[in-house]
Structures are given as structure tokens and as C-alpha cells.
């Protein structure tokens, strides 16, 4: 990264894209420090708010999530004696690590103006394939096969969307069905595949310096993806494709290739998430009753709640991290306060609607 030497003396320091967000609302160690996107100009507004200017609707939309996350965090910290323990907070992240990995990656797809509903099925099929090869070929095969098969499934999605011009919703909805079907087939109708090697369960069930490996992997994935998004040519291309596809093409960008790559990255990340999940449970399962079924919704909800635009062109990975952790925090906090689980879903649903409705309301005022 280059040093932020400011060539514009008159420019307020607030608009320097390299200035980190002064408020992150980030409760968890090992999570990426929020950085302002260099390209999304609205991201620079926060320091201005803090410097005492008028707070406007768009600020509420862009930074309300941070305030809300902090408020919720503070509430749980006060209401529950257990919430604010490192053990609980680590657990919170641990439980959301697989969702978080998938959500961070699908942020790329969404920023580039597409959608992926096949996250759960890629997750399940990768998990099953990883476990299968662990049993039949040897445990070390599970790592490349799980991630690689995820990438291949993403590639299929990408080709459907770009070359066959199938709408991303439909393409990934359909491919999700097929991937899920294959997973059931591999498991001969839904039997668990349980590799016996301790290597298989190592990353899912062990810690280093007291932190679960999935938490570390989530943090690394989130940080790397955020840096790629904010500081590379590829990241900039994603914003361009999602913001104005025609303009991106007329500027010489190979749009299809960029779009395909976002699906491949998302697929590979879901493969990784599946691998971690099977490592945590010690088995590969083709059921969609658990995370496999809810993953796409939770991941995309996390993206939306964080404040990235569902229509592409605007957003960041750190927002997704915040969104996912907030959803997780509601579950965790309500569990600790012994609130019945259905309330969690109701509250999470209302939150997502509020976040999306707010962004629409603000966009309409702008128009």
C-alpha cells in the first residue's frame, strides 16, 4: 500500500481514502479493522459527521449500522453477565465463521451486480466431496477437493450468468438444486460420511493461542478480501461492473471475466466454509436442514444489513463482517437472555427490512 501523501493541500483530511474509520464498532479481536473504500466516495462522510456537521439521512444509512451494532453490543454487555467474556465473544465469531466466510465472498458477487443463491448447495456438496475423498483417497485430498469443487461450481454459475445470459437469480437457484442433488447422490441418499482421521477434524475442533482455527480463517479471509476490494485493480473493476456495466465494457474491461471470477471466488469460499463445517462436526452431510439451507439467506442478509447495495456498485467486506456478526450477536445475546428463539428470527427479519428500507428511502430522496 502506498503512503497517503496528500497532493491536494486544500482538501480536508477527512476525504483521504486511506484514513481509517475512527469508529469501527468492532467488538471482536482478530477481525479486520474497518477501512474506508477508496472508491466509494460516500464512505468518507463519517469523519465529517464526527467533526460536527449536520447528520443527514444518508449518514444514517451508511453508518447507522455501526451505531446500532455498538448499541446492541452495549445492551447485551450490560444485560447479560456472560456476554462480555472473551469466551462468549470468541464463540459468537466461531459460530458465525462459516457464514461469514461465504458472506464476505458473496459480497464480491453482489458488488459486481449479481447474486448467488447457490451458496448453501455449494457448501453442502463441497463438504460431502471433501469428506468423501478423505475416506476414499486420503485425508489430505479433502482440502483441495472441497475448495476446488466449490470453485468449479462457482465457475459453472459464472458461465451460466455470462455466456448463457441466464439471470443470476434463476441460474444460481437452478444450479443450487442440481448441486444439492449431487450431494445427496454422493452420500447415497443422505448418509453421513465420517472420515476417521484426526487430521480431518483438526481445523474444526482445535485452537491456537486460545482461538479456534475457524475464527482465524474467517478473519484472514475477511481481511484479504477487504484489501483486494479496496486496493487492487480487480476490486476497482468490481465496483465498476456493478455500478455501470456498459461504462465498464466501454472502458475496455472484460466484464464477463470479472463476473465469472466473482462467482469462482464465492464458490471457493463456500467450499472452504463447507470444509470447516465438516471438520467441526467430523462428518460430511448432504442435509440442507442445517446451515446448508439457511446459509444463502443469512449470508446475503448479512451483506444487506451491513449496508452494501443489493443492486451492486456500492459496498465493502467490512460491512458484511459487521452485518453477519450483528445477526450472530442477536442469536447469541437472546440465547443468553433466554429469549425464545422465534423472537430472534422476528427481530433479525425486522432489522434487515429496516436496513434495506432505509437505503431505499435515502436513495429516493437523492434522486
Amino acid at each position: 500500500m502506498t503512503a497517503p501523501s496528500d497532493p491536494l493541500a486544500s482538501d480536508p483530511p477527512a476525504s483521504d481514502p486511506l484514513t481509517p474509520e475512527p469508529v469501527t464498532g468492532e467488538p471482536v479481536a482478530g477481525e479486520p479493522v474497518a477501512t474506508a473504500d477508496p472508491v466509494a466516495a460516500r464512505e468518507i462522510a463519517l469523519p465529517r459527521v464526527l467533526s460536527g456537521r449536520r447528520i443527514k439521512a444518508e449518514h444514517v444509512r451508511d453508518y447507522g449500522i455501526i451505531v446500532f451494532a455498538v448499541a446492541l453490543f452495549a445492551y447485551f454487555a450490560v444485560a447479560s453477565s456472560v456476554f462480555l467474556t472473551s469466551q462468549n465473544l470468541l464463540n459468537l465469531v466461531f459460530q458465525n465463521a462459516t457464514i461469514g466466510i461465504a458472506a464476505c465472498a458473496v459480497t464480491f458477487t453482489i458488488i459486481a451486480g449479481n447474486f448467488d443463491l447457490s451458496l448453501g448447495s455449494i457448501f453442502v456438496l463441497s463438504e460431502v466431496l471433501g469428506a468423501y475423498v478423505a475416506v476414499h483417497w486420503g485425508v489430505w485430498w479433502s482440502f483441495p477437493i472441497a475448495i476446488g469443487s466449490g470453485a468449479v461450481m462457482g465457475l459453472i454459475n459464472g458461465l451460466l450468468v455470462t455466456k448463457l445470459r441466464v439471470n443470476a437469480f434463476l441460474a444460481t437457484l437452478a444450479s443450487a438444486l442440481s448441486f444439492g442433488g449431487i450431494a445427496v447422490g454422493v452420500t447415497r441418499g443422505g448418509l453421513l460420511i465420517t472420515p476417521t482421521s484426526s487430521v480431518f477434524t483438526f481445523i474444526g475442533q482445535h485452537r491456537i493461542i486460545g482461538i479456534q482455527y475457524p475464527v482465524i480463517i474467517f478473519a484472514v479471509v475477511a481481511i484479504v478480501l477487504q484489501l483486494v476490494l479496496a486496493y487492487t485493480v480487480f476490486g476497482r473493476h468490481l465496483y465498476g461492473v456493478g455500478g455501470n456495466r456498459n461504462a465498464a465494457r466501454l472502458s475496455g474491461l472484460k466484464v464477463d471475466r470479472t463476473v465469472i471470477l466473482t462467482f469462482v471466488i464465492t464458490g471457493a469460499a463456500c467450499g472452504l466454509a463447507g470444509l470447516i463445517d465438516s471438520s467441526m462436526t467430523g462428518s460430511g452431510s448432504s442435509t440442507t436442514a442445517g446451515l446448508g439451507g439457511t446459509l444463502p439467506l443469512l449470508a446475503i442478509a448479512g451483506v444487506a444489513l451491513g449496508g452494501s447495495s443489493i443492486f451492486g456498485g456500492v459496498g465493502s467486506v467490512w460491512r458484511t463482517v459487521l452485518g453477519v456478526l450483528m445477526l450472530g450477536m442477536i442469536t447469541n445475546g437472546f440465547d443468553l437472555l433466554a429469549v425464545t428463539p422465534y423472537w430472534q428470527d422476528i427481530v433479525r427479519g425486522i432489522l434487515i427490512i429496516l436496513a434495506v428500507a432505509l437505503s431505499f428511502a435515502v436513495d429516493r430522496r437523492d434522486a
Partner: protein
Amino acid sequence: MPTEAAVTQLRLVSIGKRYSGTKALDDVSVELARGTVHALVGANGAGKSTLGKIIGGVIRPDEGQLFVNDRPVRYASPSEARIDGIATIAQELTPVPALSVIENVYLGIEPRRHGLVQRHRMRAQYAELVAEWGFELDGNVKVGALRTADKQKVEILRAVASDARLIVMDEPTSSLTSVETKTLHRMIRTLRERGRTIVYVSHFLDEVLELADMVTVLRSGRLVRTAPVTEETEESLVAGMFGAAAAAENFEKPQRSTAPVMLDVSGLDRRGVLRDISLQIRAGEIVGLAGLVGSGRTELARAIAGADPVDRGTIVVDGTVRRISSPADAMAAGMAFLPESRKDDGLFLELSLAANTTFADLPAVASRLGVLRLAQERGKTTSLLNMLSVQPPAPSAKAANLSGGNQQKVMFARWLFRNPRVLILDEPTRGVDVAARAAIHQLINNLAAAGTAVLLISSEIEEVLGLAHRVLVMRRGSITTEFGADPPLDAVMEAAFGLGGRTIA
């Protein structure tokens, strides 16, 4: 249907509107009289469109008050304004393309019985409506198949069908040919004769002077004056819009060049669109493409730039034959293409000016591994923005917050960043104010003087004639006539219309 409440007179008092910190309108008071055409003029970003939108209920003012017939009103939406008889015909037209003209005209006000739409009555009403107003248009055609001018007609019919008393038109002629403009003006005069009030937002001062009764001049969101058109001239309006300093612009008339051929297109064909196009542009030469809307000018530009496929043809850039099947190919050959619509095909509105400027050549501000050098990007962008006098020259500003002229300059910045040998410009000054226009003309001229080959397309024939060293006229997909520098205007018009004599409307 509006009746007693219908607007006969509208008064705006101390209207103010802010957009993310900048004042789009500040303390503007205007009175609109019944049965007049009231023009709103101003540079881009002066607030004329904003004012029009406030009248039409499209946006709400932050300050001030609207009075309809001395009754204070506050519109939350265009449909609320419609209840008072105020209709808006927007710059970007909004009819439903999949429905027929009749269905669009009566959308939401269909004659009904027991909740069912009575199609035969709707047809009869439409026939009456068209007969009453004399605005001919086949009611059964799908609106999606219509040209812009006819879509506008649909909107106007829709307004009169709902008995609108005041119609706001935002830049209605910006994508019309001169004949279509004349037709529209006839319709506006008919509306005025029948007591309708027209708010006419435009940057075409000649149209305003010809058509309007009253004109309100805005500058940087403030009211300069409201005066009868008879007291104004083009010069006085320009002076009002820009202050006394910037008067009428003056196009450069540079000499024809004899440099080597930079772009050589031969036998370009695209079924039903382009027929056997051949043209050459020398280094430092500006070749203008004139022709009516639909003559294939834009299509030709897009074909050369790799944006649209072609069936046949050869493109030679600087002596090398190039296979061009994508914009990337054209760029690799040293070409740059500024598309007609900066909003649809050009800008990334949500991104910063820096991102917009460097997008077409990001590797130039990145390491070999693709990591961006943000400081370098800011530096290079800043100097380009300064050179083009973009306001504000801040790389971190969001493109959406700039005025049209400045946005267009940012588009130029993106291509200048690449240093192209061939520059293809499609409507480089559309929707741009007079000062920015002059600056862009000067820029085009300077680029040519520095050796760039320029293909210039414009609906404004004066722009083509003022800048081009040679003028090619297109008609129905082929180049029909070639002129040297400074051809007579009427000869070019005749060629464009395919006429022999001087019988142009």
C-alpha cells in the same frame, strides 16, 4: 380529475433546496401566470431542473412555500401535484414500453365500470382527444417502439387527458431533431392558446426566445431575474447565466491538416444499420459527422469503437490493420470513445472522480501485481481535473454530485488519461452549459492541434460546422456527402434530409 382546485396561477416564495451540503436552490421566488410559456434557463447546476421538479412535486423543497391560486400547497409526490392539475414531462421519459399508446395515455385514469377497464370507451376517448388537440399519433402502437419525440407526445397527451393545467417540460428537445422540435413547439403553442401553462426548462436559448413569454434566469441556485422574453436577447440571457464576463462563445476555425492518415475505415457494413462506410481521418484532423437522429451516426461511432459488432469492414489505425471486436480491442489500437449518454454508458456515478478518471487504464496507477497506488492515482487525477477545470477538482468527490458539464469533463479526463491517437466523440456537449461547452470545444481543438485524430458527432449542426475540418453527412446508414471546412449550413441540412432544393422545415 382536477376542476375547481385546478391551478390557474402558481407562486413560489423563497424556495431553497440542498443536496449533500451544496445549495441547489437558494431563496428563489417566481410567479407563473396562466396561459403562458414560462422558460427556466441557467447553466448546468444552476438549479433550473431542480426548480422544475419542485413545481411538479418530484422533489420537495427544504425551504420556502408554493402557492396554487394563493393556497399554500406541499406536494409529497408527482401524483399529488397532478391532483392540482400539474403534470411533469421528464427529461428521461417514463412511459410503460410494453403497453400501447392508448394504454399509456390513460394509465391510472382508465374509464371503468365495476372496476373493469372499458377498452372501447378508452379508444373512443383517445380518438376524441387526438382530434380535439390535433396531436396525431397511432394509439395502438406499443410505446417501446416509438421514437423519443413520439414518446414525448404520449406524455403530453397523457397530461391533457388528465386535464393538466400546468405542464412542466424538462429539456424536452435535448434528443429531438430540429423538425421534431418544431412539431413540439407547435404543440406547446396549442396548449398555451387553450389556457395551459407551460414551464419550459431548457438550455437552448434560441428556443426559449422564440417560444416563451416569460423567462426566469438562474445562476448557481439563485434567481437572477424574471422578465418578459421580449426584453431579452441571447446575449443578455448568457450574461445573466454567467455574469457579464462570459459572453457569446466563439468556435475555432483551424486549418485542414495534411498529416498521415490515423484512422482508415473501409467497407464497414452492419445489416440494416450501416452500409459500406468508408472514411479517413488524418492526425490532427477533426472530422464531423452530421445527419439526422437515426441516420446511423452513433451506430457508426460504436461500430468503430468496438462497442457494437459489424458484419464486414476493415479498420486501419496508424497504418496497422486492427481486428476490433470489443472496446478493449479498439482501446489497444489507440482509440478512445466518448459515448452519447454519460449516465448510461460513461460514468460510474457512485464512484469517486479518481476512480472514474483512471478506470480505463488502472494498470497505469497500479503495481505489476495489481495493487493500486492510491496516492499516485490522486495526483494524476488532480492534475487532469485541474487541466480540464473540473469543479470541484477533488479526486474524492462523487461523480453523481457534479453538474452535467463537469461530469462530461471527467469523461474527457478518463480518455485523456490514456493519451489516445484517435478520439471518437458522440455528442460531447449534450446537456452541458454554455461555459463548459466552450471549454470542451477549446479542448477538442487543442487535442487535434496536438495531433489527435478526432471523429465528432453532434446533433447540433453548428457544433460540427464550427469545429470540423471536414464534414461527412450520413443518411440511412451511409455517408452520402462530404464537405470541406466551413460548408454552408443549408447545404449540410439539405444533404442530411436528402433534399435537392431549399425546402427544409
